[in-house]
């Protein structure tokens, strides 16, 4: 009998989850949405597939397989739809569940893992009894290898009570801020959307990507959410992060803990960002940023 169950909607996610799941031996895969089930079958495990990708359908499919297989461990990537679907499975059977976990070690009767908590300001090491549900942090474990044997593919159906009326893709600025090496990030210190060009010019001179704080993406919508740096946005790890007109809310700071060097430019010398930067410039961004851009151009391109 397989002892683990892996849930996901992309081969990358599923292969990483399998690495964790295989600590307990054999596994089954529950794949949802538009995935290549033929390719997934090459990992050598039975693949259950549900075409729908809304959380309720995923829950119903996962529950069906869980009831059949009775696994000791459910492993999946951390994302919003799986937090939703797997919290329901966990609630149904009172299973412990944890999100964004890494350093996962599983034995016959318990699992241990590490995860960030307190808005990213601390790490906790936990131990939970099996069966348990673990949503792993992306790209922190290697992918599992494919196998000689090919797994069987079973199609599942689901009929959810929550009806999807419409789905629209979010506007994308074509940036991948999480992998950017240099980031110039903008906040509420800018008085208008047009003024952001001061930051764009600095970013261009440095060869940096543009990031932003929560209000710029979520409230004012001056930039798309793919620019949003923070706990609810994206976590970044550049070698240089320049925060312009960003006061430094805890949720924003949680997104930049992995930055190597943080520069803050702000006219309020009591802004929390100055306690969380390596180099701070207390200045009016409207006066200072154009000068900085000019000097960067002169020095980098001489």
């Amino acid at each position: 009998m397989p002892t683990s169950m892996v849930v996901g909607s992309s081969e990358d996610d599923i292969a990483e989850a399998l690495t964790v799941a295989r600590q307990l031996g054999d596994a089954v895969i529950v794949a949802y949405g538009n995935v290549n089930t033929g390719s997934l079958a090459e990992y050598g495990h039975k693949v259950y597939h549900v075409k729908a990708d809304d959380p309720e359908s995923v829950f119903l499919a996962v529950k069906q397989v869980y009831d059949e297989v009775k696994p000791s461990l459910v492993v999946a990537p951390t994302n919003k739809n799986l937090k939703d679907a797997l919290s329901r499975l966990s609630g149904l059977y009172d299973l412990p569940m944890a999100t964004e976990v890494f350093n996962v070690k599983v034995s016959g009767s318990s699992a241990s893992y590490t995860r960030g908590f307190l808005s990213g300001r601390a790490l906790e090491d936990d131990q939970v009894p099996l069966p348990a549900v673990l949503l792993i942090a992306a790209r922190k474990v290697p992918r599992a290898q494919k196998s000689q044997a090919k797994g069987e593919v079973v199609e599942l159906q689901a009929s959810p009570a929550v009806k999807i009326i419409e789905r629209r893709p979010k506007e994308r600025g074509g940036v991948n801020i999480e992998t950017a090496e240099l980031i110039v990030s903008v906040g509420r210190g800018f008085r208008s959307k047009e003024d952001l060009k001061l930051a764009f010019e600095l970013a261009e001179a440095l060869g940096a990507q543009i990031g932003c704080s929560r209000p710029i993406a979520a409230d004012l919508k001056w930039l798309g959410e793919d620019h949003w740096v923070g706990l609810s946005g994206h976590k970044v790890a550049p070698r240089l992060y320049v925060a312009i007109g960003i006061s430094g809310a805890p949720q924003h700071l949680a997104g930049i803990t992995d930055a190597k060097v943080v520069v803050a430019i702000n006219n309020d010398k009591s802004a929390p960002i100055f306690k969380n930067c390596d180099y701070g410039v207390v200045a009016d961004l409207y006066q200072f940023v154009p000068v900085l851009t000019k000097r960067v151009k002169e020095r980098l391109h001489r």
Partner: protein
Amino acid sequence: MGDIVVLLKPALNPEMIRGTQDGSVDFDYMPLKLSDIDRNAVEEAVMLRDQYFKGSKIYSISVVTWGPASKRDKDVKMAVQEGLAKGVDEAYIVEDDSIVPGDPVTTASAIVAVIRKFGLKPDLILAGEATIDGFSGQVAGRVAVKLGLPYVSFARKVELKGNSIVAERDVEDYVEVVEAPLPAVVSVTREINAPRPPTLVQIRMASRKPQHMVKLSDLEGVVTPKRRLAAARVLAVKRKQMIIEGKTPEETADKLLDALASEGVIKA
């Protein structure tokens, strides 16, 4: 009909984090406060009540997960009182040292036990998408499935149409408009509204509203915590905090670029 339950967590305040000598999180030192996103949930409850369910009641349920009760009681009541000031009518607080430190398994089962014990019949149960201490976003989903109700997660807009709720779900790559029959459980994001601070009168009134303290012995079906917190350590991000000053903006810019070049992060 039309009552609303809102889930309010007295959460550890991450801004007040402090470490002990060995770098562990000093839980004893950290105060609790109302979890930020729960403010949005209360605000939404009040707005929906005023728009659709005039005259119905808003109940809040809180489960204390960080003990000991003797030390946390004041913080817990302050956090709950904030909800009462914003428009909650009656609060239920589960405070029992036998379930601390708690976990989402315990919290969800205690919430459901309170709803059953006190015969609450909400049309809507609202919660923040996650709490600021644990941030795992699973309690609302657990409550929904235990009560056999539809669940709509990560809502950034909510409307009622007849006996249904229509919500915009904010997922990573897309926004999804969904419709679910009431009663339902909904978790909301910070983008759903801008919480209004309570007025002075509301704050004064809040202290007169009922706060029902509930012990585990009053409830049935509460699962004891399954998670064992083995260790918790402060993530030390050490920044240099050097303020750069020059006589002119040009000089400041040059000093900054010199520093960045010596760090090796730019080649200027």
